[in-house]
């Protein structure tokens, strides 16, 4: 080969030009493929509705089959929930039609970012949700730009719970001859910590039995918000644009978590555990698990030992003040993306999953409470523990409250900030005052960043 010939034909400019052309061709081909859509969407005469949820635990194949049987012209495309994939889909301008959201904490942020369709009219005219069938918890999906629970409605919960109630393992209580918690009178946080210390077993520096799991990695933020609500105060300013962890009440709440960690009774940054209670509770290693009603359906009911008989109990959430508050910190549900092209079909699926037959199928194993009154009769109560859990929930419903979270920062980000700021306090490296100040600064920075995006 004549190398000079090749060089003369392959100038730098032509190399770059042809390479760019190749990339553009490849990208163009990708776009064309995207435009073709998924195989399901090309099914003649049928419309595909995409929905992003956790498969099985939040939407089972049986529910999908039931929906498609009732709506033969709609095909459901279930996309497993994945935040990275969701970001990529938004970046590409093609998010799922219906998207999972933790309503209590994250819905206002979603609405404020302009991501959700106003569904007020559809809710008002719905035979499933209307006429008082939708429970008050559905109001966490309302946001008027300033306050949650008011204004237009953007979605509904698939299921919900009073998330900070207490499941307890009777076997471990019996081993220590400790009476069970009351199903009607809530403990204080201090009483709960004292009880957890009694139930904890330490051998050779190892935690053999954990007294308490507060679900700190998921609900630390919610705990603090609820603790302050029980004292009649709030973590945030009235417009939710500033947080203050240095108030006496907020510092008292943080101090409780510092005491919890230093007592070494369960999962905290000082005693990190490999599981979140899903394994240790059924294995009789965890005495008290702070979780909502859903824990019964997901963890207890499938267990061959705990799921039969009367080996567990359910008690009200602990209290930190004089106002009896048992709040909703999750209420996971669906919103409709503003880019949704088949809103009528997507609405049918949302209605089915959040309030219709799908919801009834979903809650039948105790995986959460339904968002509509008509499906309450589907909750399980055949086992004694199931009946007791249902009774405990009913006892607490009068104290249900929608907790106030800022729309400008995500729960995950705030829990990260709490972990980074308060762990050194737990380790006695800095004072609580310093930790609370650091936390306030971190969270307010997150809020200001969120505000800069939302505008």
């Amino acid at each position, binding site marked *: *080969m*004549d190398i000079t*010939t*090749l060089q003369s*034909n*392959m100038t730098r400019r*032509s190399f770059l030009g*042809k*390479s760019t052309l*190749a*990339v553009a061709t*490849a*990208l163009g081909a990708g776009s064309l493929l995207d435009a073709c859509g998924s195989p399901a969407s090309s099914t003649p005469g049928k419309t595909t509705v995409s929905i992003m949820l956790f498969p099985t635990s939040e939407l089972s194949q049986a529910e999908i089959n039931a929906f498609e049987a009732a709506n033969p012209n709609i095909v459901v495309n279930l996309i497993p929930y994945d*935040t*990275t994939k*969701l*970001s990529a889909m*938004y*970046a590409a301008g093609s998010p799922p039609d219906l998207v999972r959201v933790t309503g209590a904490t994250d819905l206002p942020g*979603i609405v404020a*970012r*302009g*991501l959700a369709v106003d569904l007020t009219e559809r809710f008002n005219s719905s035979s499933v949700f209307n006429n008082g069938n939708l429970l008050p918890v559905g109001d966490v999906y309302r946001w008027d730009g300033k306050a949650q629970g008011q204004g237009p409605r953007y979605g509904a919960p698939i299921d919900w719970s009073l998330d900070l109630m207490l499941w307890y393992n009777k076997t471990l209580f019996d081993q220590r001859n400790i009476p069970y918690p009351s199903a009607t009178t809530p403990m204080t946080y201090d009483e709960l910590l004292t009880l957890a210390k009694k139930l904890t077993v330490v051998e*050779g*520096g*190892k*935690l*053999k039995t954990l007294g308490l799991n507060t*679900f*700190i*990695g*998921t609900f630390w933020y919610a705990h603090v918000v609820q603790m302050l609500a029980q004292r009649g105060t709030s973590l945030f300013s009235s417009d939710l644009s500033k947080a203050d962890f240095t108030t006496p009440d907020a510092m008292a709440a943080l101090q409780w978590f510092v005491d919890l960690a230093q007592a070494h009774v369960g*999962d905290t*940054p*000082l*005693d*990190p*555990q*490999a599981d*979140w209670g899903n394994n240790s509770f059924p294995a009789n290693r965890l005495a008290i698990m702070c979780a909502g009603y859903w824990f019964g359906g997901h963890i207890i009911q499938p267990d061959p030992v705990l799921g039969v008989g009367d080996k567990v109990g359910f008690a009200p959430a602990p209290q930190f003040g004089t106002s009896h508050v048992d709040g909703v910190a999750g209420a996971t549900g669906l919103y409709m993306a*503003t880019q949704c092209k088949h809103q009528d079909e997507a609405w049918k699926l949302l209605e089915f999953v959040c309030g219709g037959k799908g919801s009834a199928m979903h809650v039948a194993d105790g995986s959460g409470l339904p968002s509509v009154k008509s499906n309450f009769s589907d909750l399980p109560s055949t086992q004694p523990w199931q009946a007791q859990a249902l009774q405990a929930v009913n006892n607490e419903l009068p104290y249900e409250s929608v907790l106030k979270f800022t729309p400008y*920062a*995500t729960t*995950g*980000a705030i*829990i*990260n900030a709490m*972990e*980074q700021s308060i*762990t*050194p306090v737990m*380790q006695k*490296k800095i004072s609580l005052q310093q930790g609370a100040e650091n936390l306030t600064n971190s969270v307010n920075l*997150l809020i200001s*960043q*969120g505000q*800069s*995006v*939302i*505008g």
Partner: protein
Amino acid sequence: MAHLITPGASPLTQREKHIHTGNVSKHHRKWKRYSSRTFYLFASPWILGFLLLTLFPMIYALLLSLTNWDGLSLRWKWIGLKNYITAIHDPMTWLAIERTFLYTLIAVPGSIALGMILALLLNRQLPGIAIFRTIFYLPAVVPVVASAITWRLILDRDYGSLNAFLGFFHISSITWLDDPWAFFSLLMLTFWGVGSSMIISLAGLQNLPQELQEAARLEGASTLQTFFRISLPLISPVLLFEAITGVIFALQVLYQSYALSVTQNGIGVATSIYVYGIHVLNAFVNNEVAYAAALLWILFLVILVVTLILLRVGSFWVYYEVERD
């Protein structure tokens, strides 16, 4: 192929005949016409891969780092270098960089030294030596995440086998996966995979000319002298390669620390193994996608500078048998 060469006939091929008989220009024209196409055809898999999977994401990330996009919002705007300025003023960035450099300073020389020692031990013709080489190399082929999860189980304070073993000697349980031990656990996991460094050093040692070592021994050089005066200089280019790739991997360390951390939301305890990768991951978790992109570009520039320094410093201690351009 003798039967193709008939008596009196030239053994040249038809193409060579054309060249010899003056048909060169015609065939050269044909070759000229298709030469660059041929080049692009054969190079296109790499070119496309580089442009689509390396250059495009890098430029995309660079542009992203100049915005305030949070990964979801339909509303975003250009904010210039604000993310970079925020990163520089964020104390967690410096904590992460400090931890990462400390990790790199220990992990890279340690891995090279351990790998070299193992390679020297295994560079012998003994019965069953292949079995030993396999045993030491095996951890290097186990996926990083799988090995990290295995180590997390071993190092668990309450149920881990390491604390159970220490218990036989009445040593109380150690919280291996929290401050300050978690950093050492990360190093332990790194050194467990030293087989990859060992195999490169072993290949380098086996490629050494034996006559030089024999000559040194005949001249009365001890084993240590032979190693330091003959072997080490000769495999110094291999060591430079190990140093550069090791530093790049160490500065990017993420999976090991991520899988070792045991908190429920998957993010490591801030004060334990807070390496740069976790810092970036935190930014993603916090929906600060644009900020995370800025952090990644800072990491890229740091790696670039460190690599250039290593290459420059390497010219003082690396011995090349041939003259370099």
